[in-house]
């Protein structure tokens, strides 16, 4: 780890020299805490990898543009053990003890929400990323922003419209009891009803489920032509494996979180072809010229595809911060002003905030198509047409 860091700083130093900067500038220090251990540990790499790729790229380009002066960047990081109370303490430490110049976001909705009051109190802006809940809108606008387009009420509404347009008439819903799944379900069920789609199966299951056989058999027997699996990563993997064994026949299959991981396709291969999932970024959207280069750089560095949700969001949040700092410098109030008003050019196309929310990116759906993640809904951003799932 330290060797890698050293190597990085040597490369960074080399880049600075090559750029012809006469004197070495003080690095800009960016603090964040990450759930490296504990409940959410599985999700950390998607986000940390994106941060470190961004760091490499910025340093290789001569540094971060701070209101016209280029300065190298370095991260100050801690492990919050997936615990919001720890994260609160860590960000207080980053702000008051370590006196970092900028902040990057932690993982998960609870930790983002727990940090909002701390940021307001210290008047320290932070661009969030991996948080998704209707409750985000209740956060007082000011020092935190959420670029995600995965907001449960919109997801429910759009998913129902998407299913209707593909001729779905009945849907089986299986849902983890964890918050995001339940939140989406609470908006999805009424939306389906409104679209005239029947819900013959509607079941919850615990987060640590080890066997879905009974639920999947029930689903098969119901004859529903859509299976909506509101799953978290570990049950997404379990679902794909068992759906194959039991021969789930529905032509429309959605799996919530996990299907965008690089490892998902690596582990499950052909069988997950044509699975639909939630996400608003694809490397194949030609209208976003930065998308494909990000994908390629990530793949070259880590030898796997970036997570279309978390890695993309994490990288976007750094792009937003980078562009804000280029105009505003490191003054916290000026950064806040810049993030609140500017339109940002990111790998996910243009982004602009109104209050705490990104209002530019539409709520979209992705489909795994022959090893690639394609946007299939809505029509305004789609990269490929939806394909029914024909087998596992």
């Amino acid at each position, binding site marked *: 780890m330290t060797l890698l860091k050293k190597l990085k700083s040597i490369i960074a130093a080399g880049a600075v020299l090559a750029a012809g900067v006469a004197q070495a500038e003080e690095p800009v220090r960016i603090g964040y805490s990450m759930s*490296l*251990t504990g409940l959410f540990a599985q999700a950390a790499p998607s986000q940390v990898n994106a941060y470190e790729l961004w760091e490499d790229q910025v340093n290789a380009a001569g540094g971060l543009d701070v209101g016209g002066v280029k300065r190298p960047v370095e991260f100050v*990081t*801690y*492990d919050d053990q997936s*615990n*919001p*109370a720890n994260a*609160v*303490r860590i960000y*207080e*430490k980053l*702000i*008051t*003890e370590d006196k970092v110049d900028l902040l990057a976001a932690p993982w998960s*909705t*609870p930790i983002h*929400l*727990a940090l*909002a*009051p701390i940021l307001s*109190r210290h008047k320290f802006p932070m661009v969030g990323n991996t948080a998704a*809940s209707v*409750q985000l809108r*209740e*956060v*007082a606008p000011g020092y935190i922003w959420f670029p995600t387009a995965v907001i449960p009420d919109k997801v429910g509404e759009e998913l129902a419209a998407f299913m209707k347009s593909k001729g779905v008439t009945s849907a089986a819903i299986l849902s983890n*009891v*964890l*918050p*995001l799944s*339940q*939140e989406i379900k*609470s908006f999805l069920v009424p939306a389906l009803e409104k679209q005239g789609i029947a819900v013959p199966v509607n079941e*919850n299951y*615990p*987060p640590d489920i080890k066997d879905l056989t009974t639920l999947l058999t029930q689903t098969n027997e119901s004859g529903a032509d859509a299976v909506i699996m509101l799953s978290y990563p570990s049950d997404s993997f379990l679902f794909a494996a068992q759906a194959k064994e039991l021969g789930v026949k529905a032509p429309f299959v959605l799996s919530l979180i996990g299907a965008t991981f690089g490892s998902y396709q690596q582990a499950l291969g052909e069988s997950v072809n044509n699975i639909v999932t939630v996400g608003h970024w694809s490397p194949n959207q030609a209208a976003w010229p930065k998308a494909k280069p990000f994908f390629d750089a990530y793949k070259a560095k880590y030898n796997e595809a970036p997570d279309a949700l978390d890695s993309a969001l994490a990288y976007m949040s750094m792009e937003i911060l980078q562009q804000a700092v280029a105009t505003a410098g490191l003054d916290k109030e000026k950064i806040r002003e810049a993030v609140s008003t500017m339109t940002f050019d990111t790998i996910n196309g243009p982004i602009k905030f109104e209050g705490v929310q990104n209002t530019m990116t539409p709520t979209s759906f992705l489909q795994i198509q022959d090893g690639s993640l394609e946007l299939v809904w809505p029509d305004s951003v789609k990269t490929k047409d939806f394909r029914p799932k024909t087998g596992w």
Partner: protein
Amino acid sequence: MTKLNLDIIGGPLLVLAGLALPFAGADYLMGIAFNLAMWIALTQSWSILSAMTGYVSLGHVVFCGIGSYVFILTNGTLPMPVALACAGLAAGVMALVIGLPVLRVRGPYFVILTFGLAELAKNVIVQIETSLGQFSRLIFDAPALDTLYFIMFGLAVASTAAAVLVRHSKLGRGLVAIRENEEAAEAIGVPVTRLKLIAFVVAAIIPGIVGGVLLLRTSYFEAAQAFDPVISFSIVTMAIVGGMGTVRGPILGSLAFVLLSELLWARFPQLYMIILGALLILFILFMPRGLSGLFERREARR
């Protein structure tokens, strides 16, 4: 005599240091002190039942969880201090209701049962929240850290005072008799069931309030986190490290644990839990009476 001297000097000194701390103006330091006060309050309250009677509970978090749930339901409709009182009251009532059946079993069965009950309570609340269509709840306009710190500090003092009072009362002597030999105690007329139940209820109230204050700190409620079993495990760990024989034990244990983890997590994020685990093993092997045992040995030698 010397022991008393140490407590007479050390106790007020700690209280003074605690009261003066917010005026240092360092949020980070206050954050650590908040944590320290929280652990003292929790471990001290735990020791009222578990260290005194030997009924080791692995489910102390259940009272925190109930407290924070009641707090989030009542806060807003009721003024914050009243909501906090409700949280403590609810935890006490919960102890009263589950106490009678739970306190009938002993030894490892009690340990497992308390752990199981905490998990059960967690899952029940998750189900309730799900059926209410609530997935997590937010608190707005939580008071600033210094206010929260003073409340938590008050809870630490209160729970230490409660531990002292219980220890020096008839109730405490009855509880020790239960620990040493429950049948014998019962035979000579100690009302064992009643005493255990009283201790259980007393031990539950403070963690209930702590649960509410903790929620104000993170401003976010989610059942799985409010009932995190790691809290129960940490309490037992601190009690063991501090020593279960005295009121000092939980204070020393919490101090050691909080300061050590503060030193370790920033420097050795990967190794931090391993080092803590190794220390716990060393303590159990070589210092079964914990840090307070160390003090007592020194005092005895003098």
